[in-house]
């Protein structure tokens, strides 16, 4: 059995954050998510989401809107999409969707593709009346999320770390990338003691020498990983960095496509890949990439987009619950970060970072149309 998409709605959003979010490459005060709503002829709807990141895929809100307003979308209305009963149907939808054209300056139109792909999967699953979790069964429940510390002020970073520990989080990521990195990370470790896992994320702030210096200075404080220590253009230095430090090296911005992953694995450049659905161009590709990495002995973190809504968080929850191994899981901040989320169900994790398995049809969250309208970005 198959179905056709009758309507596609594109909803660029602007949802303010409760607090700003900062890292080396960007300051962010609100969500710039783009939500796609696809409907079948009966009016049944599925929703997907992507968040453009110029410093990752080259996409901007404008470029995504351009991609999604082109005649390419009309093609999707004339395709026969398979109903979903197994993983092979997910793969078939991925193949049918194909690649979206990347405009000028865009490396891969993955945020746009993620929004479309997740929406089509959600609709297909809802048509079959089944949860994504029935196709991708959970091997862990709950999913345990980690926290993230973005402050550059040492005392504030420690305060926030203590708060997160008080909320039961056992795994924290510290954004680094300035001269105060070493002192700040050591202060956090001293305050938290040895039982909390600490990861670092440099967002490409360092070069090989700086990374070596900082990481060697931090080896004594038990760091579980360092994410994207070098700019993407310096991926060639990653094998050398791995030789210079015992701290496992993770990449994020460096791994956008499945070819990127193959290259990084082949050159033994990484210990862990940060897999994010929007960045990878959809759930199916994210899953495939993650499984490829795990089969090669490379770890996988299921990451998130800062400012993602419950739609993408739900897709991430399913993926994180399903994979045989995950190094760490991020996201599901919900209204901890957004002033309002889009769905009837809450997606935010609870004490200890616990996010329960989602069991409702499709992604397991129902988008409220009035909230899509309320947070629509003004052009």
């Amino acid at each position, binding site marked *: 059995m198959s179905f056709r998409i009758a309507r596609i709605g594109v909803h660029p959003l602007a949802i303010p*954050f409760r*607090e700003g*979010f900062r890292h080396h490459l960007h300051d962010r005060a609100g969500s710039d998510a783009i939500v796609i709503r696809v409907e079948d002829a009966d009016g049944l709807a599925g929703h997907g989401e992507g968040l453009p990141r110029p410093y990752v895929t080259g996409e901007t809100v404008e470029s995504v809107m351009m991609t999604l307003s082109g005649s390419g979308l009309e093609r999707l209305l004339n395709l026969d999409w398979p109903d979903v009963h197994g993983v092979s149907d997910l793969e078939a939808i991925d193949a049918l969707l194909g690649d979206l054209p990347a405009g000028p300056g865009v490396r891969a139109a993955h945020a746009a593709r993620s929004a479309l792909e997740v929406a089509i999967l959600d609709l297909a699953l809802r048509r079959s009346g089944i949860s994504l979790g029935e196709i991708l069964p959970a091997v862990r429940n709950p999913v345990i999320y980690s926290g993230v510390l973005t402050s*550059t002020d040492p005392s504030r970073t420690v305060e*926030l770390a203590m708060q997160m520990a008080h*909320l*039961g989080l056992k795994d924290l990521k510290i954004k680094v990338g300035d001269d105060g990195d070493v002192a700040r990370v050591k202060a956090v470790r001293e305050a938290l003691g040895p039982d909390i896992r600490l990861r670092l994320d440099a967002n490409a702030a360092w070069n090989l020498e700086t990374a070596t210096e900082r990481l060697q200075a931090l080896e004594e404080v038990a760091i579980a990983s360092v994410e994207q220590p070098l700019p993407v253009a310096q991926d060639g230095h990653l094998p050398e960095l791995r030789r210079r430090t015992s701290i496992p090296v993770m990449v994020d911005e460096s791994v956008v496509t499945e070819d990127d992953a193959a290259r990084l694995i082949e050159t033994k450049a990484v210990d862990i890949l940060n897999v994010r659905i929007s960045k990878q161009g959809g759930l199916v590709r994210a899953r495939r990439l993650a499984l490829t990495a795990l089969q090669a002995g490379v770890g996988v973190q299921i990451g998130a987009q800062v400012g993602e809504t419950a739609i993408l968080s739900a897709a991430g929850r399913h993926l994180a619950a399903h994979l045989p191994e995950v190094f760490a899981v991020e996201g599901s901040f919900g209204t901890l970060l957004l002033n309002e989320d889009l769905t009837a*169900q809450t997606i935010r994790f609870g004490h*200890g970072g616990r996010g329960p398995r989602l069991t409702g049809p499709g992604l397991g969250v129902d988008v409220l149309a009035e909230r899509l309208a309320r947070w629509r970005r003004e052009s």
Partner: protein
Amino acid sequence: MNLVIRLRERLARDREAFLAHPAFQAMEAGTAPSSAYVRLAGRIARTHLHSARFLAFLVAVSPPSAFEALRDNMLEELGEHEGEPSHADMLREGLRLAGLGPHLDTWEAEALSDLDTRVQEPLLHGSLRDLGFSGLVEVVAFEDFLARTTGRFAALLEAHGGWPPDALGWFHHHSEVDLQHAEEGFSHVAAFVAHHRIPDDEAWMLIDMALRGNVFLARYLDWAETGAGATV
């Protein structure tokens, strides 16, 4: 520094940031679009139409020395005290007189939806003590805020939002009454900390989490950006 003094300073800082925010300044100056005044009214409604239910939870977990005052506060909110209408009904009446009656069903539903969300979402805190204290801090924060700002809210709504004077009862009531509640509230915070023997540094951590970001901006001017560079 004394915990209550520190809390007062924090609330004053957040209040000043709210009043200085360009979105609020534009409404006071009358340069905001008319839709902003409607949205502000909607946010006030969504925040307060069913807030008395939350007080019931606080009464349940209150320390003995604060129990009666919190119970009386809740009964007053519910209109079960000295024959006064409930605060929610005062607000509903004001919204109708301001011509916003057609929005009321939507705002009621949103307020109830928020209550549902608070009930269904996984608890972040590890104990009812922490959850109750966080709730108390939030209630005290809003009582203090309203007591000191509702006069300005009323003035801008009357001058630029099309509200007639007789629609502003809820605002005037809060500016007169909640200063007393706010002052009582600070003593309830101190009583809660003392009763449960919460160390000051831990109590401050809970306060800081309860007031994360600027709760007044998040609640009343939800469309206004808090500004990049602050930290999560």
